[in-house]
Structures are given as structure tokens and as C-alpha cells.
């Protein structure tokens, strides 16, 4: 979606400000918000792609100004409500008013280490041969869905060259919307700066792009 998350190449945000010796957390609630996000993923109601989409669908003014873990927390509340595990009344009251749907799938403390160590690999067996090979010139399509996509706006309708073939991976555009894994070939694409920005200088930029984003150049 052409949402506030799609920031590559935007102007006006000012310099990058880094904090010397930055602490891991900036408030006591931040680790709790992160842990709630990870723990509730185990319930199996949503995918990581749906989580990303829930964040980018937040109001742009909020998305661009909120602290990052506030974005996480606000998206988590929305996901829990969407999947029937939470109501606005409960949030207002600060207490449960109805039972949980999937307590049987909650993440027990003793399974945390194994769950985090396993992660969530996204490579899958390919269902068809790869359409493109290393060195092929490709053009990204003019895709502007209102749904989740991982083709950034600055790299849309641009010519580049395939520099990596990563195998078939879960397709985020489908997976974010409950449409299954729909694995697609994933490629590393290199763009020259003049093709992205209309002028020389700058740097070569790489993105990783699924096959449905691409056509032969």
C-alpha cells in the first residue's frame, strides 16, 4: 500500500540523529510491549506479514510521529480486536470480560527459548522453475495495491539486474491477507542511481523482490 511506511527517497525528515551509547530500552513499558507482540504471535491468529500490514495501516500522522514500540502496541491491539481476542470495552476496563479463544495455544515460558531459536524460515519448495536468472535485466511492475506489498515506491517501474536468486519464499503480499503462503521466487535486484532518481551520483541500491513484481526488461 502507498502508506506512511514507504519512506525510501522521501525528503524533509531532516538529519539522522543517533544517540551515543543508546540504551536497549527508553522506557520500562517498551520491553513489555515487545514481549507481548512476540508472545501473542504464538496464538497463530496472524502472520508476521499481517503484523507489518497492521502497523502500516495506522494513521499516517501517528505512524510518522509515534515511538516505534507505540506503533507495535497500537497495531497489536488492532490485531487482537480483529481476531476476536480483545474488545475495546476490555481495553477501557483493563480487565477481561470474555474468555480467550485460543488459550490452549499460548506460549509457555519453558518453550520461549526454543520458539525464538527456531524463528520462522520463509523458504519453501519451488512449484515452478525460476523465470529469471543471474544477470537478467528486469523491470519492476507498476503495482500500487491498497493491500500489503513489499515493492517500495521508489523502485516501482524501474529497470535493474538480477544479482541473487534466493529460492522460493512465502509471498508477503498473499500471506499478509490470510491467502496462504503462495511461495514465489525471490530475487536480489540491483538498480543504478540514475535509474532510480533520474540523475547520476548516489549509490547502487538493492532490493529483494518476488517474481510477481517483475517482468523482463
Amino acid at each position: 500500500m502507498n502508506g506512511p511506511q514507504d519512506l525510501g527517497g522521501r525528503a524533509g525528515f531532516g538529519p539522522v540523529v543517533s544517540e551515543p551509547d543508546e540504551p536497549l530500552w527508553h522506557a520500562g513499558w517498551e520491553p513489555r510491549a515487545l514481549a507481548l507482540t512476540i508472545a501473542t504471535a504464538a496464538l497463530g491468529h496472524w502472520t508476521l506479514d499481517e503484523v507489518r500490514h497492521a502497523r502500516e495501516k495506522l494513521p499516517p500522522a501517528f505512524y510518522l510521529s509515534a515511538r516505534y514500540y507505540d506503533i507495535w502496541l497500537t497495531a497489536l491491539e488492532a490485531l487482537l480486536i480483529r481476531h476476536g481476542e480483545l474488545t475495546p470495552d476490555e481495553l477501557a476496563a483493563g480487565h477481561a470480560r470474555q474468555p480467550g479463544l485460543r488459550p490452549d495455544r499460548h506460549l509457555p515460558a519453558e518453550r520461549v527459548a526454543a520458539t525464538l531459536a527456531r524463528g520462522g524460515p520463509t523458504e519453501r519448495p519451488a512449484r515452478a522453475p525460476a523465470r529469471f536468472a543471474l544477470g537478467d535485466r528486469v523491470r519492476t511492475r507498476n503495482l500500487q495495491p491498497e493491500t500489503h506489498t513489499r515493492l517500495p515506491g521508489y523502485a516501482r517501474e524501474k529497470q535493474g539486474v538480477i544479482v541473487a536468486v534466493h529460492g522460493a519464499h512465502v509471498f508477503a503480499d498473499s500471506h499478509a491477507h490470510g491467502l496462504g503462503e503462495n511461495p514465489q521466487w525471490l530475487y536480489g535486484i540491483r538498480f543504478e542511481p540514475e535509474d532510480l532518481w533520474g540523475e547520476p551520483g548516489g549509490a547502487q541500491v538493492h532490493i529483494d523482490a518476488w517474481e510477481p513484481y517483475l517482468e523482463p526488461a
Partner: protein
Amino acid sequence: MHDHDHDDNHLDPMSARVRALETILTEKGLVESAALDAIIETVETRIGPRNGAGVVARAWAEPDYADWLERDAPAAIADMGHTGRQGEHIRALFNTPQTHNMVVCTLCSCYPWPVLGLPPVWYKSPPYRARAVRDPRGVLAEFGVTLPDATQIRVWDSTAEIRYLVVPMRPAGTDGLDQAALAALVTRNSMIGTGLALEPGR
């Protein structure tokens, strides 16, 4: 950016929201507070840039390990004991005098957790995400890094589930150092590409 002590009746709004959500989900049996504690302990103690620094130092010291890291980074990194969430499909990018690599996630905050831990605030912020792809030399200057004009910059936007670890160039004057001393020269930013490895004795 500070954290006052509060008693439960006077929580700041964010703390109150998080407390309320944890209470509701715990009452429903959907989360266990002990599991939240274990998650926090893992991200505080098991992941972080010291892991990545050990990987880089070994790659500097052992050419065979560097080859392995280049061919199959997940396996080479797992050999150092680092695996898991947001490191499932990792690739190592080796800086050279000709090429400097820099990593960003313009669309969210993708980051190689097992080797670098959680991303710093600036990495997740609009200024970095907006400008890393368009003006990387300008961004590097804000980090105090100036590269020779002849060095080509390659920016890697983490738009899918591949995660990138930059292997900075080994500084001069480090021939006699063991891997622990080498690892101490490898900063977090040097593994994102917004910094260089430290020179010994500085």
C-alpha cells in the same frame, strides 16, 4: 528519555496501556507473564552486536571461515551459536576498498536480530529510512564517516526476509591481535554500514 518510578496508581499513559493489555491477556490465558520475562531476558542477554562482532572477528582471522560466511552465512553464524528469529535467511556483505555496503529497511525495521540484537532508534526512524537509499554519502557524513570518492557505495534495502550483515574491512595494525581483541574493534554501526571498524589503540 528517562524512566521514573511510579506506583501502580500513577502510571504514565503508555505504561498503563501496556499493563492493561498484559492484564487482560493474562486473565484470558493467552499470555504468561513468565513467558514475557523469558522473552525479554532473551533479547537482553542472548542477542546483540557482540554476537556479530565475534562472527566478523573470526572471518578476519580465518580465511576459510570468511569463505563459509560468504557462501552460507546462516550455517557459518549458527556455528558460532547464533540462530533464530530474524536471522533465518541471513547474508554477509564484505566491504572492500572498492565497495562499501550499507543496510536499511525503508518499509519497516527489518534487522538481523541474532547477530545485532534489536535495532537502534535511528535505524527505525523516518530520516534514516528516507535518505539511506537516496543520499547514503550524506547519511554517512552525519555518522562522521567519509569514504574515498573512488569507493562505490551499495545500499541494501531489506524488503523481504533476507537479512544483511556487513563485514567491515579489517583495520591496519591488527596483525598481532587475537579474535577477542579483534571483536572489540567491531562496532554495531560498522556491521550496518554506517560506521567503520575501530582502529586499535584509539
